[in-house]
């Protein structure tokens, strides 16, 4: 029987969508059709067409240019927030998973409490402490992402602990730090990568939600997809297409990242439930 390799449509579709959006965003850093901040009094709330492909807002600013810039701001926030979360989360999860002990128990209980909470709510309280601005938003989201990364990485480390290659390395007298980062870490890269994709997914949504609520990026700072959606909501009556272009930009970013994470074999929905099952089964044993 000929065994045909299954094509990973999710991963391919996700990579194409994300690749295209990242390409457009990168272009937006160097060139936009119009000046994103430039106001054109002759084209206020213009409908999509020529020369403004996606129309203009109530100041006559070109929507396409602003989306290219705004998506860049959104992606930049998501990128650095995920960097903070993934780096600190991997460090904490790796160390606690490898060494175990009371600290492990304590940190996991704490992250249980944090991850059980709706993250929007936590972000709300956190932003009200540190204030608005994209750098502060990066910090808040980054810190909020740490527990979920730590949980995933810890779980993988606990699984890898009893593999022969780890035991062998120990017997050969390899230092703990080297086992953690050189031996185990590359083996969990697939899981880590898909969590990073999910992290991007959540970060884009969080930025959009927070900016939409007026608690994220300050409008004076730069455009962001959340801010654009908020502005579009105000001129919904006269220019409904603005909301569509901002909203679908958010949706496309999220779609790309969610397809990638699924393609990498991490179903965000299923893993959440099956992990609880595993825990219950483990408690039975």
């Amino acid at each position, binding site marked *: 029987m000929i065994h045909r390799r299954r094509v990973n449509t999710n991963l391919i579709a996700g990579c194409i969508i994300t690749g295209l959006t990242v390409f457009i965003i990168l272009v937006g850093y160097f060139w936009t059709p119009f000046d994103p901040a430039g106001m054109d009094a002759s084209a206020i709330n213009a409908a999509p067409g020529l020369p403004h492909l996606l129309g203009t807002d109530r100041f006559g600013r070109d929507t396409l240019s602003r989306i290219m810039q705004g998506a860049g701001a959104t992606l930049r926030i998501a990128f650095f927030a995920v960097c903070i979360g993934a780096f600190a989360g991997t460090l904490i999860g790796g160390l606690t998973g490898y060494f175990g002990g009371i600290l492990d128990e304590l940190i996991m209980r704490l992250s249980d409490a944090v991850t059980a909470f*709706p993250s929007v709510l936590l972000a709300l309280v956190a932003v009200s402490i540190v204030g608005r601005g994209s750098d502060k938003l990066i910090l808040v989201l980054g810190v909020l992402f740490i527990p979920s990364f730590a949980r995933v990485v810890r779980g993988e480390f606990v699984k890898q602990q009893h593999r022969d290659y780890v035991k062998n390395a120990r017997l050969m007298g390899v230092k703990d730090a080297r086992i953690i980062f050189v031996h185990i870490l590359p083996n969990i890269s697939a899981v880590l990568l898909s969590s990073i994709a999910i992290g991007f997914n959540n970060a884009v949504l969080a930025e*959009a939600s927070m900016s939409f609520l007026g608690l994220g990026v300050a409008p004076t700072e730069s455009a962001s997809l959340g801010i654009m959606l908020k502005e579009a909501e105000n001129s*919904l009556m006269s220019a409904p297409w603005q909301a569509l272009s901002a909203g679908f930009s958010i949706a496309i970013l999220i779609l790309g990242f969610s397809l990638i994470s699924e393609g990498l074999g991490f179903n965000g929905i299923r893993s959440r439930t099956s992990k609880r099952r595993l825990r219950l089964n483990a408690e039975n044993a």
Partner: protein
Amino acid sequence: MLYVLKKLGVFLLTLFVISILVFIAFQIIPGDEATNILGAEATPERLEALREQLGLNEPPVTRYFNWLAGFVTGDLGFSRSYNMPVSELLAGKLGITACLTALSFVMVILISFPVGLLLARFAHSVFDRVLMLINQLVMSLPPFFIGIIFTYIFGLVFKLFTPGKFVPLNEDPLRFWGYLIFPALAIALPKSAMVVKLFRGSMVSQFGEDYVRTAFSRGNSRRRVLMHHVVRNALIPVVTFLAFTLVDIVAGSIIIEQVFAIPGIGRLLLSSISGRDLAVVQTITMIIAAIVIAVNNLADLSYKYIDPRVKFR
């Protein structure tokens, strides 16, 4: 019994820790109730006098335990910015958010179960593929964006409701629910898409099981096998996911209340944080935390009823 006691202990401890965290957060934020009442141009003397009067000059630890003592005995405190007791302030708003959440949750179930069943019945067909593609797209739509689209289509074009004109329940129950349908659906749509995906996947993964083959070999129709045998087993992961969904819906309502100008606890929470109204924020976080923890525990318990093999320690 021991299990319940242990869970109850963890429950109370978590609430205690969260209340301390919120209290500390409010000590760190710049500004307090006094600056908020008097505004930015108040003289230091007047600020000082008001702080003395409000009891803000007492040490933080004393103030925390004063609040805790009140909270435990049922005195939720007094909201300065709304000038009424917190319990009275919340009484009306809590019901609105609860209605929105409940409506949204019911919608998730009503949408996702039939669609999931249908997709599983026609799994891997063209119909299934096309709908799953649409499903994936709906999953990616942020609820507040759907809310804005609904406001435009149903509010401004078809005029099925007046955007921003919320109708209280005691004024006109029919129009109250009519107004809530759209925000509830905005929250429910992406969540239903997730449940559809999970439910369909869970059903399809059962198709290869021995009991399905046995059921077929005994002459059951496809429909009967699906409805009587597969669904029950496929529901196990779905029920737990629904518990998480409920928590997400509560959080989602905070944002959607802004879009539709619904005077629920989400809007109150936002305005109370900016108004530095500690008593209100504390109470709302306590309520949400209690719901979150309770739902999570219920999800754990639900295993026992769906899958009797699971025992608790």
